[in-house]
């Protein structure tokens, strides 16, 4: 039995590939439920303030949102490529793709920064006196909280990839032991998927 083999490993230097991956998946469940609370609020308040939500969404720039979606999906691709490169022993390629992932993630944040500051200059922020109707207040609060928390996850991802990059460079993450890179990738795909839901909910349906 494979479980028997896993159990027999000395606890001090044990390494369990399937266990580490299972732990990561469980962590991703918690992330889904964390954002789930926000999606629940979105659903309730959208049904309560349908007209105001539709109206407020027209203020958002679909082109900028679409560009960011493209950037994030591409970063998921480079993430996946870095893993398959490392698995086939091409450490140089893997490092390159990891660096590209960090660059795309940063580009996403830069675009987000300009989007947010543009909103601020139009007098739109949580609690702004220029927001008149209740539905509008709630819509923009949801917009800032949801994209803000998502952005925070992107920042955490960048930090994680910087560490993973350094570890790959020092061969701590290598062809035979790539679970940290793979788990980092799982996290990154989750951040990506949450955006895939945020984009239509906030920008597209009007």
């Amino acid at each position, binding site marked *: 039995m494979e479980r*028997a083999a896993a159990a027999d490993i*000395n606890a001090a230097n044990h390494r369990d590939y*399937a*266990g580490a991956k299972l*732990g990561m998946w*469980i962590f991703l*469940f918690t992330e889904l*439920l964390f954002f789930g609370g926000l999606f629940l609020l979105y659903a309730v308040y959208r049904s309560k303030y349908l007209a105001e939500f539709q109206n407020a969404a027209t203020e958002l720039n679909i082109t900028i949102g679409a560009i960011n979606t493209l950037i994030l999906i591409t970063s998921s691709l480079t993430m996946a490529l870095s893993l398959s490169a490392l698995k086939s022993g091409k450490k140089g390629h893997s490092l390159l793709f990891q660096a590209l992932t960090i660059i795309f993630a940063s580009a996403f944040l830069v675009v987000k920064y300009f989007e947010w500051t543009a909103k601020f200059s139009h007098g739109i922020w949580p*609690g702004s006196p220029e927001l008149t109707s209740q539905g509008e207040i709630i819509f923009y609060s949801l917009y800032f*909280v949801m994209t803000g928390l998502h952005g925070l996850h992107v920042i955490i991802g960048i930090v994680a990839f910087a560490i993973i990059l350094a570890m790959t460079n020092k061969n701590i993450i290598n062809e035979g032991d790539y679970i940290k890179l793979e788990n980092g990738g799982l996290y990154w795909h989750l951040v990506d998927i949450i955006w895939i839901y945020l984009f239509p909910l906030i920008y597209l349906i009007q």
Partner: protein
Amino acid sequence: MGGQDNNYLNTGKYQGILSWILSTDHKRIGVLYLVSVLSFFLSGVILGFLMRLELIAPGQTIVTAQTYNSLFTLHGIIMIFFFIIPGITASFGNFFLPIMIGARDVAFPRLNLLSWWLYIIAAVIALSTIFLPGGPPDGGWTFYPPYSIKSTTNISVAAAAAFVVGFSSILTGLNFVTTIHRLRAPGMKWMRMPLFPWTLYATSWVQILATPVLAITVLLLILERSLGIGFFDPAKGGDPIMFQHLFWIYSHPAVYIMILPAMGVISEIIPVFSRKSIFGYKAIVISTLSIAAVGYLVWGHHMFTSGMSDTARMIFSFFTFFVAVPSGIKVFNWISTMYKGSISLAPPMVFALFFIFLFSIGGLTGLANSSVAVNIHIHDTYFIVSHFHYVMFGGTGFAFFAALHYWYPKICGKMYNETLATVAGVIMFVGFNILYFPQFLLGWQGMPRRYYDYPAEFTTGNVISTVGSWILIAGILLMVFNLLRSLFSGKTADNNVWGGTTLEWQISSPPPVENFHEIPVIDGPPYRRKPEQ
């Protein structure tokens, strides 16, 4: 301590206090948690003692109304988040889960240590509210808006503490689920796993799947107070009832985080002291899992008076009745296990019997709460206070003490004075009932909870209740004294003091560093007894 040369207590990488707070050994982390949760339990007891003292007479007795508000809020936060949620799971669970499934440690030992550190950091944040300007939080541990948005006390800081301790709880759950999936000994199939690990498995899933909802809820409360996002503020289009929904989507399953491991402990103790195998092993496993699952569907019963459609109230009421069924199954199985058994009334068994008695009262009054019409009459009265103290303290609390007396010789390698332990248990049981039973009557007569004052006709019941709190505290102090004294002067304990059949009793007391010299091979179901035992 102990006779073994190479046990977990005398072997380690560091010396002194560092050997504990930097250890990744699940047994040392379990002891760290045990000491921490017991300290918070005693702090919570002091706050409860002060509340009861204030209520010994109508009008202001020893504290002001605002201080009283902070007392019950801190009592709730400390007892819920720092004693009873991590309580059995993180202390005894950490210590015994790997041993009982035949593993050397949990799946992620360093993450395990991080959980404890997050727990301690959260505790420091929570206690800092007492000293920060603004004062300790008021308005109750449930942080209900709109009051929690308006209050000028340190509610954001307390909410941040709940966020951090939630993280700790999630990591423990994640660790335990992975451990159970990956590290069971050869031959330990799912249906060969002892019942305490089973309840830890169900509890861990609830911790994983419910706690993130609390995290986002308290985070939004903090944002509401700092930025005014308006989700829970009617003036801005938000709805305070949405907070209640999100809060109870976590906090009702959290009730099962508290009680399931307690049921696991009782399922371990009853067969050992009845000298029989457990009755209805499969039924107990299935009821454990179904409590965890159905427990997600009952949160609305906290909100019957908050504003909800009749259909929703009927559905939540139905599921609340339904979730009582698996709990009832467990009680019947424990009693059937004792039937025709050779029962030994050692301290752990005495505490376990008290658990069954008190938990049954708590559970049956829970059914009274879950019928909508009755609920509207007793909502926010002392009936509710009494009900959840019977379930949480009489249930989980007494199970915690049962576990403490059951596993103490294994953890410390020392034996305590059994007579003194039983005397302490009986005093606690008597004090507990004198303290909480009058509160059922007070609540039924309409005395609301969370007031520092009451009309004169409630005086008798309150005086009896306060006297009960003194008896209960006397029992607790005697128990703590007995256990502490035995650390220094207790006799060395045998490896299998109680004649237990599970794996922790097959190794030395205290256990060796990596639990097993050789990983055991499991060839049958748990709790089997050889004829001579």
